[in-house]
């Protein structure tokens, strides 16, 4: 009934508002679904959690599709929803135990100039562990810039923090990841590193 009344809302014969919304939504899924999943996976470090988070994000996006004034800004809008859903989920669930790394101690331990950090990054398990050990306030801007190709300025807007803060957080994230990977190198294998991280206590990053 209501749909008929809304018909030809934009002058397109035979297209109802819900048709238009559905088309926008499907475009969002096709354009950004994969990216959101990648981001969610890197953020959560767990495939199932990432899947749930992306589902929740798109469910919320569909429910409030009317609030998307400009489909061009759909990417930022989706990432905002994802961040809110994530924050909501963290509040709801008892916080996952995050691996820790005492940054200062790592700096001492990782005083190993010969480590090939870039080579370490190719090991996905190491990368996952390294990101997991990184505090979320550093992880988010780092992933938005290096995974999602948001500019630092866009990231600042998305996270509602100054550009300078984004730059310094990314820099610190970079330092941390380098040092963490060096430490892992010293531990020599992922399992050992995981055990190590769990027993050493969390860092402040």
């Amino acid at each position, binding site marked *: 009934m*209501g749909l008929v009344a809304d018909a030809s809302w934009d002058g397109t014969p035979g297209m109802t508002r*819900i048709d238009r*919304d*559905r088309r926008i*939504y*499907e475009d969002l*899924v*096709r354009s950004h*679904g*994969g990216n959101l*999943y*990648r981001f969610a*996976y*890197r953020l959560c470090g767990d*495939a199932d959690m990432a*899947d749930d988070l*992306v*589902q929740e994000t*798109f*469910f919320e996006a*569909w*429910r*409030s*599709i*009317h609030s998307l004034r400009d489909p061009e800004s759909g990417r930022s809008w989706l990432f905002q929803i994802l961040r809110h859903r994530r924050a909501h989920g963290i509040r709801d669930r008892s916080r996952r135990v995050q691996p820790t790394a005492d940054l200062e101690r790592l700096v001492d331990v990782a005083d190993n100039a010969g480590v090939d*950090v*870039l080579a370490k*990054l*190719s090991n*996905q398990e190491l*990368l996952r562990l390294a990101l997991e050990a990184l505090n979320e306030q550093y992880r988010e801007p*780092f*992933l938005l*810039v*290096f*995974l999602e*190709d948001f*500019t*630092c300025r866009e990231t600042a807007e998305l996270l509602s923090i100054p550009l300078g803060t*984004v*730059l*310094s957080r*990314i*820099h610190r994230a*970079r*330092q941390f990841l380098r040092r963490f990977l060096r430490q892992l190198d010293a531990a020599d294998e992922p399992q050992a590193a995981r055990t190590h991280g769990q027993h050493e206590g969390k860092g402040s990053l």
Partner: protein
Amino acid sequence: MIDDKNLQQEMGEVAALPPSDPRRRDLELRLAEHPSSTIEQWRDLLLENDSFRDHLSKVDIPQDLENRLVAVAKVASPRRRVMARLGWVLVAAAAATLMLSTQLMSRYKASARMRTVALLAINNHLNHLENHAVDMKATEKKELERALSPMVGFQVVVPALGNGLELAGGRKCKLGTHTVAFTLWSDFAGDYSLFQFQTDRFGLPTTIQPKLVRSTQPAGAEHPCGAWIWTEGAYGYVLTGDPGIHIQRLSPRSGTVETK
């Protein structure tokens, strides 16, 4: 290693900016004057960026993810189907309430002002017209209008009151703080005062049908005074009479003014 920690910090931060960013271009210009080891370190940072991008993107995306996400729109409804309409209903209700309140308030204010003007006229008739003296004695409306208009500063238009009332004369006087044209009328029962005022000076609407306002003056009188008040465009009139006169019997009609 670079000794300058500030430069190292700056390089670490600026490396995340796009190549076109002025801050990055400025740093790269300055780096050209540094030792090759510093430039080398800058290149390593940029390589590291590429490596981060490359390795971070290596995530296996579930094959059925897109289909599952598209299906969401088939099983759930957007929130606005109900909320947006409810929102419009609320907005419309609020607007209607606001309009109604404004109208009621406007009517209430107009009514209160009319009453005030009428009471001022009754008070003048009873207490401030010095035995109803007039500056000009005239029985001809036209003559009186010509004489009074320059005195009060607006066009005096004497209405045809009928009902056996005879025009005796008029003068300029004040109703509250505003100048008005006073005309004195009489019949077998006593004297009547008619005040012509400028509608906008008293904040009254331009069209008010004649309305009778009753007062309690003079205090303790068996037949207190009343007054008729009405407006016709830019001008308004208030007609009152001596105590004991049944003012309501006059019942003036709007449109009694002969426009010039």
